[in-house]
Structure formats: structure tokens, C-alpha cells
């Protein structure tokens, strides 16, 4: 009773904290992590753990060097690490996730001021960085393992030399390689080639629905994003037949990108119309790059481009304050 605490109202706050939100995002990513192990064996988990470790260590190191308060307890670096891991092919050598994780938190996130201030999604930017640095490693995709044949540890053979000598079967996006036809069900479940976490649409959807119900992500972003991608791919005439539509949606980074990356708080707009334009832009650019671009996958570039536009969208699109009347109306009244 001696030390009564003083503060400005309100005196109570809601339960969620930055930390609890980030932990829920990690939980939402677990199905995708599990799926990556199911399809590619334990080396997939190893890659994700390396990437998480590097991302967390990168942030910790930056804080130590700058003598800032330690921030790794908020779990956002863990989210970045898991996302980056899920964005890598299973055949990358061990140093790729480590460098990527470091780059994501130290350069993309901490140099710009830390959580909430990064200009683009750290995991995605790191992915693009890795793609530019090791195009070969980053575009080699292999078939899922066969657990019955004792292949659980198969891809550890890539740890040092990458995909050399491993049969590369497919590229990320169905559209860019007409020679491979993947059954829709396989694409949905993830029984196909691709990055660790991109392949299983089912696992990503489970996580996405969880986050949407928990109101951690804005469901409008993935829905508008995916719908726009589908629409413009159709308009650009890249479908051979309607049956390919689900394949388009379930393959490549569209699910992972739209649910987990495009919805990043720091780099998505804060208003309804801002979100609409942003999600539309992501979808449009994805369709454009997928249909006409040189890279097999457009989702990363599309999201990062729209991330960079986000400050402008937030600057020019403000909500109408309650009770504010339109200027014309005020004039008429006069």
C-alpha cells in the first residue's frame, strides 16, 4: 500500500503481447515445419533450426554490439528464422541458412531499427539475397523422400556440397515448366518438389486459418492476394485448362507468402483500403512475374515490392475520422 503506482489511463490492458503474438505465429508455422520433415526428412528440420539459430543470434549480437536492450525474448527473430527456413530448398548446404538468418535479422531488421521498423519482410529479403547469391542452390528442388526406404536422413548428403549429384526434379512453379505435371492432390498435401515449407498447402492453410481466427493476421491479405493472382494468371492466358487453377494456388510460395509473409505487421498497411491495394498489388505482381518473368517464382519479389510501397500507402490513405464531414458537404452547408 505504500507505493501506489501512478499512470495515465487506461489502467488495464488486453492479454496479447508482442511475445505472445509471435509465439502464436510460430505455433501456426508448426504444421508446415512438420510437413517439411514428413516430405524431406530430418535435414529439413536441421535447416530450419540453423536458420532460427542464426536469426536469433544475429539479433542478439546486434543488440550486444550496440549495447541496446536485448530483444530476442519477443520471439520475432524465431518467426523470421522459421519463415526463412521454410523458404529454402532441402538441398542447400548448411551455411546458406546460417548466412540467410544473419542477414535477415542483422541487416534487414536491426539495421533499420528493429521490430516494426524494417522496410521489407526480413525472411523474404534474405531469401531474395540468397537467391541472387546462390541461384543454383536456391532453385534446385528434389522429390520427397520415401520413409519406407530408410531415407529419413537422405538429404544430409547435401549439407556440404548442396544439390550436386542429387536428382533435381522440378522447379517451384508449375507454370514455368510445362514438362512436369503434378497431381493436384499431391500439390495440396505437399508431395512434390519445392522449398521446405512451400509445398504443403494443407499445412499452411491450417496455420493460416488458426491465425485468422485468432485475429493475428488480417485474413483479407491472403484472400485478396491469392484471388488476384488467380484472376490475372487467367487473364494473362497462362492456363492450359481450368483444372490447373488449384495447382497454381497450391504450388510455389503463394500460400506461404500470402499467409505468413505478406501479413507481416511492419510491412503491411494499416488501413482497409491500404490493405486492399497492397494485397491486390501483391497478387498482380505475382501473376505478372510468374507469367512473363525470368524467375521461376514471383511471390517474394511481389511482396517485397509492395512492402516498399507500404509507407506511401499509409501516408496517403488515412481512415475517415468518425464525424468528419466531406469538404463538399461543408461548403454546401455554407
Amino acid at each position, binding site marked *: 500500500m505504500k507505493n*501506489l*503506482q501512478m*499512470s495515465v489511463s487506461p489502467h488495464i*490492458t488486453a492479454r496479447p503481447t*508482442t511475445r505472445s503474438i509471435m509465439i502464436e505465429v510460430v505455433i501456426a508455422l508448426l504444421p508446415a515445419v512438420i510437413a517439411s520433415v514428413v516430405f524431406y526428412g530430418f535435414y529439413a528440420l536441421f535447416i530450419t533450426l540453423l536458420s532460427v539459430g542464426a536469426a536469433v543470434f544475429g539479433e542478439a549480437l546486434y543488440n550486444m554490439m550496440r549495447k541496446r536492450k536485448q530483444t530476442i525474448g519477443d520471439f520475432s527473430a524465431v518467426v523470421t528464422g522459421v519463415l526463412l527456413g521454410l523458404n529454402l530448398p532441402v538441398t542447400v548446404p548448411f551455411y546458406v541458412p546460417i548466412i540467410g538468418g544473419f542477414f535477415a535479422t542483422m541487416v534487414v531488421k536491426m539495421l533499420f531499427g528493429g521490430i516494426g521498423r524494417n522496410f521489407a519482410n526480413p525472411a523474404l529479403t534474405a531469401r531474395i539475397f540468397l537467391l541472387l547469391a546462390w541461384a543454383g542452390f536456391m532453385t534446385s528442388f528434389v522429390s520427397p523422400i520415401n520413409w519406407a526406404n530408410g531415407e529419413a536422413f537422405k538429404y544430409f548428403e547435401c549439407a556440404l556440397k548442396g544439390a550436386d549429384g542429387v536428382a533435381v526434379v522440378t522447379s517451384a512453379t508449375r507454370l514455368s515448366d510445362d514438362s512436369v505435371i503434378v497431381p493436384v492432390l499431391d500439390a495440396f498435401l505437399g508431395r512434390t518438389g519445392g522449398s521446405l515449407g512451400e509445398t504443403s498447402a494443407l499445412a499452411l492453410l491450417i496455420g493460416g486459418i488458426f491465425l485468422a481466427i485468432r485475429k493475428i493476421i488480417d485474413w483479407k491479405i491472403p484472400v485478396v492476394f491469392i484471388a488476384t493472382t488467380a484472376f490475372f494468371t487467367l487473364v494473362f492466358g497462362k492456363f492450359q485448362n481450368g483444372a490447373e487453377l488449384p495447382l497454381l494456388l497450391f504450388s510455389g510460395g503463394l500460400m506461404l507468402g500470402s499467409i505468413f509473409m505478406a501479413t507481416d505487421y*511492419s510491412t503491411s498497411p494499416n488501413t482497409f483500403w491500404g490493405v486492399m491495394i497492397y494485397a491486390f498489388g501483391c497478387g498482380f505482381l505475382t501473376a505478372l512475374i510468374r507469367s512473363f518473368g525470368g524467375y521461376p517464382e514471383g511471390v517474394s519479389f511481389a511482396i517485397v515490392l509492395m512492402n516498399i510501397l507500404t509507407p506511401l500507402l*499509409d501516408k496517403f490513405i488515412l*481512415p475517415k*475520422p468518425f*464525424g468528419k464531414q466531406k469538404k463538399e458537404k461543408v461548403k454546401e452547408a455554407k
Partner: protein
Amino acid sequence: MRITFKRGVHPNANKSLSQDFPIKEFPCPDTLYFSMSQHIGAPAKPAVNVGDRVLRGQLIGEASGFVSANVFSSVSGTVKAIVNNPTAIGGSAVHVVVENDRKYEEVTLEPIDVNDKEAIKKRIFEAGIVGMGGATFPTHVKFAPKEKIDVLLINAAECEPYITCDYRLMLEKPAEIFKGVEYMMTALGVEEAYIGIEDNKPRALEIMANMETDKIKVVPLKAKYPQGAEKQLIYAILRRTVPMGALPSAVGVIVDNLHTAYSIYEAVALNKPLYERVMTVSGRGAAGGNYLVKTGVRYQDIFDYSDVGEEIRKVISGGPMMGFSQANLLPSVCKGTSSLLFLKEEELNESEISQCINCSRCAKACPMHLMPMMIERVVNREAADELEKLNVMNCIECGCCSYSCPAKRPLVASIKKAKIMFKAEAAKKAAKGGNK
């Protein structure tokens, strides 16, 4: 579709801590401290001298100006001193200190004609009636609008967590409340009144709905904070939007708190000036209850009576969303004191302030549709010229933004600062314009 406004938050209501305690007379202490600033506006002028004997219901502070209100003694006794004493909203005010002689000798106001519009208006001023929800705006000022008024809204939403005094009044004094509303309608010359009650109070809704008349309707509202904020209440019930910067009278509406209606009943029908009110004592750190408390009772007296535990962290005058934390227990109960809360740490759910993650939860919660995170950034950069675009003056300081912030940032504090910066900037601009 449940009747409500857009956005807002859902804090844990915590009404069960006190809602089932019937209104009980709070034991009167020996010494009472009557603040001369129990309302918004100019403080009342002490109308008594040290040594004077006063009666219960006697004027001890006289309204000084139009936006001011009379203050009455709630006991009979002797004026011991006239001193400066801390108030619950921060700062201090002149207080008349009365030694209670426990005789409770009483004076009342002259009876009036309850059908006479002007007489009721005059009585509202005489009896020192102010808004009793916490804002304490003198009611006679509200009842002299420039615009034509066609609807009276009674705010019985009681959307602040913990507080149950209006709820108890509805259960125990519904007939008196309806009478009060009738007097208010007579004074305003309106034919239509609505009493808005949140639907998390089914018993109150049932009792009040049974008394409904052709002119006075009871409206169930969705339980959501800040349902009782007047602009939100007007939008919810009437779908009228009060323009930015304007008062409810701009759309033909007057909004008053339920307890105000009850006190107007007492002033008009019983000729009793406003010197006592029903208030809630709650929080997990104390024994809760609803009490008829005399103004002038100090918070220390309530503390002593309420079996307060050792581990309380905050004492709050008013609700947890908009109330004031207290540094000590020297302030006294005023006309607008709806509750005194003794909160433990577990109720505050505090954690360290961290960096804004730009999640826009504050914007999604803001009932005035503002962008609190942007206002905070502009305040931190001291860029006063950018505040106009962000419409800071539209903020009602309801606390939804700070409440919903996962980084626990004190957004309301920033916006309060922003308002000061905005006013200073506007004054600077006006001064420059004048020089030309």
C-alpha cells in the same frame, strides 16, 4: 443485429465483483472535505466561513459563473477549515472541511411545479446537478443548447469495467429514474427519450423494459467498450453522427448519465440538492460493494472500511479505462465519483513497454477512427504541423488504443501530449496571422 457503434474493445467486465451487493448507506466519517471543484468549469466560491454551523443540504459553495455548479454540505456540523486539498483528477482545489455533529439536521430546497419547464431548468442549476458518469459537466449548461433538441438519450451502458452503481440504481430505483427522465424531457421540451443499457445486464434490462412508456424507450446495446461514450451512443441508438468538434446538440440530441436522471428526480420531486450519490467500491484488492456515499467522504475512509489487502498496486478513481490513478488517499468523493477501485497486479496485466510493431490493433480499436500509432510517432518527432492531418482533437481518450497495444505503449498519454502540441501550434499560427 445488436445495436452498437464501430470498433471498440472488449475488456473483462469484472462486474460480478460488486453487482450483487445492494446499495447500502456508507457510514459517515467525523470529518468531511467538500471540494469546490466537483465539476468541469470554474470552481465554486465557498459560501461559508470557518466556525459557521451548516446543515445537511445547505449551500457551502456557490457557482461562480455559467459553467460552474453549486456545492452542498452532506452533513450538519461546523466548518472547521477552508483548505487546499488534492483532488482525484490530479492537482488540488479549495475544500471546505466540515466537522460532522451526527445530528443530520437538514434544509431542503423550495418545492417547485414539476410541469414547469423553466422551473425544472432552474432547479437543475440550483441543486448543483452535474454529469455523474465522470465528466461532471454542469447539467444546466447542457440544458441550454443553441440548437433545437428532439431526443434525450440516457446513458445506462455502464461500459467501464467494474462499475455497477448505475446497474444497482436500475434494479432498486427504476420508478424514480423514469420520473427523473420525465422531468428532463419536460425541461428540454422533447417527446422522445431512449435509455441505452448494455446487454450484459439482463436483469436491469428486464426491469427497465417493464417500465417503458410511449415516450421513454429502453434500448439493449451490445456490450462493448466505449458504448457509453456519447458520440458512440448517439450513433448506436439513433444512427446520427455528431460532426467532428461539435457537441451532441448539433444533431438534436442531449445525452445524460443515468445517475444524473436519478439525482434530477431527487432535486425536483424531493427538493434535495446533489450531495450524495451511489458509488461502487471494487477491485480484487478490496471487499466490493455499492454504497450511497456522501460527497466529502475521503478515499481514506473508504479504504479503511473496505478491508483492502496489502498487495494492491493501484487505486483508481473512476473506471479502469478512463479513471485516475491515485498517489494518496486524501481526495474526497465528488458528484462525479462513480467508483473507487483497489486493483491488484494480476488485474492490471502490465508488462514492459516495447517497440511498436505496427500491428494496427490501436487503429482497429479506435472508435473515433484515428491512427494512434501515427500520432505517437509524430509526437515523438515533435512534428506539430503534421498533427492536423491526423485529427488528434477528435480523440475522446477512451483508452482503447493503449488497451489493445501488444507492445503496451502508453498511446493515450502520447495523444494527450499531441493535443497540447496541436493547440500550441494553432495558437502560434493564429499569432502569426494576426501580425500580418
